[in-house]
């Protein structure tokens, strides 16, 4: 194996790493904001509120990310109304469509994680909040959501890693992310081992960083539950 072809193309990998990191970070951030109302709707017992949120999460968690990306990137252009709309300059861009797909996808998964965390809320805490005279909105903001976030944290850590790995499909629609850089090097030098092992090692390092950060966050968020020593 000869990794000099990788060293010669380090700019592609650097650009790819940057594109991967910012796209995943932005998708996760926007997706999380979107997931909170959807997750609350999913935890509702009113079918009129629950059903639309259920339909959304069911469709997005039940189909492959790649198909969702194809539907948005290639599919939307099929309608002349979309092509004539003022958003067409964005919707024709692969990176924007990828970002939109990732946001919608991660929001669906995160909403389901939040629903689970909200539904496992201890009854006593809700009763206590109600006994204090809290309105449903105040109770959601001060009692349920902070506690649900804490319980959702381990599962959300997995979702972050899934999003990082899922983001590799943008290389299929010509965006130069980490995988895209590897595919470029592979097609130029026909060096699949060097190209993909380098990309794989970068992903592994990113995954490891995420795991480490989540473990730290978990330790501080669950600090009050740890046994007290000394």
């Amino acid at each position: 194996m000869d990794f000099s072809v990788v060293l010669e193309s380090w700019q592609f990998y650097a650009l790819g790493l940057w594109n991967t990191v910012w796209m995943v970070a932005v998708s996760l951030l926007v997706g999380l904001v979107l997931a909170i109302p959807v997750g609350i709707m999913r935890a509702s017992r009113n079918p009129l509120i629950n059903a639309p949120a259920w339909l959304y999460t069911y469709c997005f968690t039940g189909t492959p990310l790649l198909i969702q990306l194809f539907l948005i990137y290639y599919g939307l252009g099929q309608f002349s109304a979309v092509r004539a709309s003022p958003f067409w300059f964005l919707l024709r861009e692969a990176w924007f469509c990828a970002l939109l797909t990732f946001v919608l996808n991660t929001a669906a998964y995160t909403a389901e994680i939040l629903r689970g965390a909200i539904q496992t809320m201890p009854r006593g805490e809700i009763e206590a909040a109600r006994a204090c005279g809290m309105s449903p909105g105040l109770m959601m903001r001060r009692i349920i959501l902070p506690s649900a976030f804490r319980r959702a944290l381990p599962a959300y850590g997995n979702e972050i890693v899934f999003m990082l790995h899922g983001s590799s499909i943008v290389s299929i629609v010509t965006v130069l992310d980490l995988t895209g850089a590897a595919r470029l090097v592979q097609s130029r030098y026909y060096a699949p081992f060097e190209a993909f092992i380098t990309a794989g090692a970068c992903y592994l390092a990113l995954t490891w960083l995420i795991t480490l950060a989540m473990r730290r966050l978990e330790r501080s968020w669950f600090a009050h539950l740890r046994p007290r020593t000394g």
Partner: protein
Amino acid sequence: MLDLHGYGWTILEGARLTLASALLSVVLAVLIGIAVALLRLSHSRIASGAALTYTTVIRGIPDLVLMLLIFFGGQILVNKLVAWVDPWIEAQGGAPIGYLDINPFIAGVLTLAVIYGAYMAETFRGAILAVPHGQLESARAFGMTPFQVFRRVLFPQAVRHALPGITNNWLVLLKSTALLSVIGLEDMVRKAQFAVGATRLPFTFYLFVAVLFLLFTTASLLVLRTLEARAQRPYR
């Protein structure tokens, strides 16, 4: 309804390939998963370290990257092997193999099996640990061989704990098969791409594929949830 311009059947044929590759890889992945979980829990430092490395590395790298690595890298390896045995075949008077193209179905199934084997291993590790240790000790005290302990005592109890994880892994694996179209497998995604190329109707065909995937995931959920309920029954 959707007007598929006569491409409906070819896409359904592709769906058969999607399902075949998913089912074959999940069976292999379960076998790999059980073997790796047992290695991981064995007393040998080397075996357990190797198993840990495998599951950590594989689960840290995207499916697509591993798929491309195994597909393109495997191509080179296989042909190096062919170049090595060809002179020998010729010396024996046989016809040389020449250049071999890797079959995307085989490459795809093997890759998915290797990837999801790592996830299955984690699932089975947890499930095996959930079986009370006394059960294994008493089985051994009865004079069962290690294989008998596994088949009669450990596995039947562990599978109940493993089922929810298996369900989850299967759903993720099923959706991952869409990536096999990238390495040239003519699954339903690839067939839809052909149809899109001919008709210029991407939304129609990708929506059709999305609906098929949704049908498959729904059907799997119904079946596997029933199985889970059945496995729980003796313990209620």
